[in-house]
């Protein structure tokens, strides 16, 4: 068990270092970092000084190590476009993205699992089939069109909900939250639906197909042969076995919600990290791009670790010491 956790930690570290390397290479080789920082008119002396300051005259591996060390402290340099430290720019926008992503993930998981179980149990039912067909339509709908559609219906036609921004926010220490005001909560509804929808359909289809697979397995047949009532078979025996593969894949999916927020944030002009990243891509603001990439990888690794731990809680076969088997 300890080895299992250690292995996931190690894997996470490897992923982080690999992504940091890509981020560093981007920073180092895409465009000229010195020219980007000092502008065209700078003198040679200025340029050399900055080159030294950034450590760009050092050998490549040393530069990478310096990058890693600074990244660990949250120092990703200065945004080319805004001229401010990347860390400060990102910290400002972090709360908006986190609130959006976490709420979307909860929405997608809760509704997705519930609908998936329903569709599996009522496999031949009318409602279940309708839900399945709709979900396929949902997968084919680009996220930005869902957002635009929701804006059209709820903001333009019905005028119930705002079409952009976070509404009123409240400062709690370094964190700005939209969860404490009416307009903040209203502003969250459409973006959360938009961002959660794709994950929802995915989780739902996954839960359904895994559950149908489990329902075909021998131990379910044996449980039926023992006369266990259907409800118990479905919710006790099948559901827990279904959740094991679902947790893995859904975990991966939820880890990428932050990155999926890129599109949603653009549609709703949500002042989060995703919108910042799209701007950075448009203007080749490499330090911001690099920092965002490392951030997404970090979230991914943390979520992955949580997934592995959830796995451990669900499956006794993993908890056992290897020698106890057999």
């Amino acid at each position, binding site marked *: 068990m300890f080895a299992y956790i250690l292995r996931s930690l190690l894997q996470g570290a490897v992923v982080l270092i690999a992504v940091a390397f890509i981020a560093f290479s981007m920073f180092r080789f895409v465009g000229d970092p010195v020219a980007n920082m000092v502008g065209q008119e700078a003198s040679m002396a200025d340029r050399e000084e900055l080159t030294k300051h950034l450590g760009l005259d050092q050998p490549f591996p040393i530069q990478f190590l310096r990058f890693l060390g600074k990244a660990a402290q949250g120092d990703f340099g200065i945004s080319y476009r805004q001229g401010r430290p990347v860390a400060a720019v990102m910290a400002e926008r972090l709360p908006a993205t986190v609130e959006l992503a976490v709420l979307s993930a909860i929405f997608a998981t809760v509704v997705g699992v519930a609908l998936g179980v329903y569709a599996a149990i009522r496999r031949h039912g009318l409602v279940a089939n309708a839900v399945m067909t709709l979900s396929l339509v949902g997968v084919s709908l680009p996220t930005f069109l869902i957002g635009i559609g929701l804006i059209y219906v709820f903001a333009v036609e019905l005028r119930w909900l705002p079409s952009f921004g976070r509404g009123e926010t409240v400062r709690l220490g370094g964190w700005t939250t939209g969860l404490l005001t009416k307009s903040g909560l209203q502003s969250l509804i459409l973006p959360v639906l938009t961002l959660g929808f794709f994950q929802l359909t995915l989780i739902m289809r996954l839960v359904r197909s895994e559950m149908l697979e489990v329902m075909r397995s021998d131990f379910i047949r044996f449980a039926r042969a023992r006369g266990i009532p259907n409800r118990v078979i479905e919710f006790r025996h099948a559901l827990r076995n279904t959740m094991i593969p679902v947790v893995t894949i859904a975990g991966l999916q939820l880890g990428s919600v932050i990155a999926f927020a890129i*599109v949603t944030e653009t549609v709703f002009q949500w002042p989060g990290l995703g919108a910042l990243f799209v701007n950075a891509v448009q203007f080749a603001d490499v330090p911001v791009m690099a920092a965002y990439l490392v951030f997404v990888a970090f979230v991914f690794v943390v979520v992955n670790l949580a997934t592995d731990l959830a796995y451990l809680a669900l499956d006794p076969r993993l908890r056992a010491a290897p020698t106890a088997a057999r």
Partner: protein
Amino acid sequence: MDQHAPAPTRTEAALAGTPPDRLPGALARAWDSDFLWSFRHSPVAIVSSLVAVAMILAAVLAPWISPQNPFDPAQLDLMDGLTPPMTPNEISQRIFILGTDPQGRDMYSAILYGSRVSLLVGFASVIFSMAIGITLGLAAGYLGGRTEALIMRIADIQLSFPAILVALLVFGIFRGVVPPAQQEQATLWVLIVAIGLSNWAQYARTVRATTMVEKSKVYVDAARLIGLKSFVIMVKHVLPNVTGPVLVIATINLALAIIEEATLSFLGVGMPPTQPSLGTLIRIGQQFLFSGELWILASPALALILLALSINLLGDWLRDVLNPRLR
């Protein structure tokens, strides 16, 4: 409904579920094969393949079938601007099926040309990722060891990041490396590479799995013994075995690639307004969401949905029929 029936009697036979007896042997077998049988009995597959084929044909034939070239300023008349669909323009009395934009551009023509760009990027990027994926999958499965570990690790990491993020990064690097003057004309190729690079991993996984199975079979050793290049022999055995899964992945990927391109263009990092794809058209049309000229937004949006949905449904059906073990 049944497009594949050559004659009414055969349609009847097909509907009755028995193979038509006048067909020659091989054809009759193909006709009665599980594949075609399920096609003939799946209205979803028939309708979606019809829609997909019609839209692809319309896109390919756009220069010949569209009422105007929407990007030739000489053919546009500002007087026709903002004409609603199917309503005669107040001044010129001309009728446009899907209306016009403020420049008097016929939306129907714009969509035909737009889906041309979308499909070009879609198909090209699918071929690109297929080529990378199959090559790396073969290499991983055949060479094994460190090469395999490295390739599959990269594939794992790649698969866990959303394709759109990978594509955006590739695009951002392109913005940083290529001088602004050349960016516009290179965009199409960059999109193909960016989308292609973000989707190869699934092919690689499937091909690697099949390769490993084939590698362990006796004929590979036998081929080596008689001096044949075992790699060549193996490739010949692996490729037919992966056709099914690769076809399924490619179909679903085509829909994804089209959506991905539209998303990038919508975000403003894809096709420029001078050479718009469906995504660019939607980005432009979004400005009219609040002002009431909804058709400028709705028609490219519907075209995109229809295209992606029909290909997706087709892919879903293929997956059910071929039922490959996708990894």
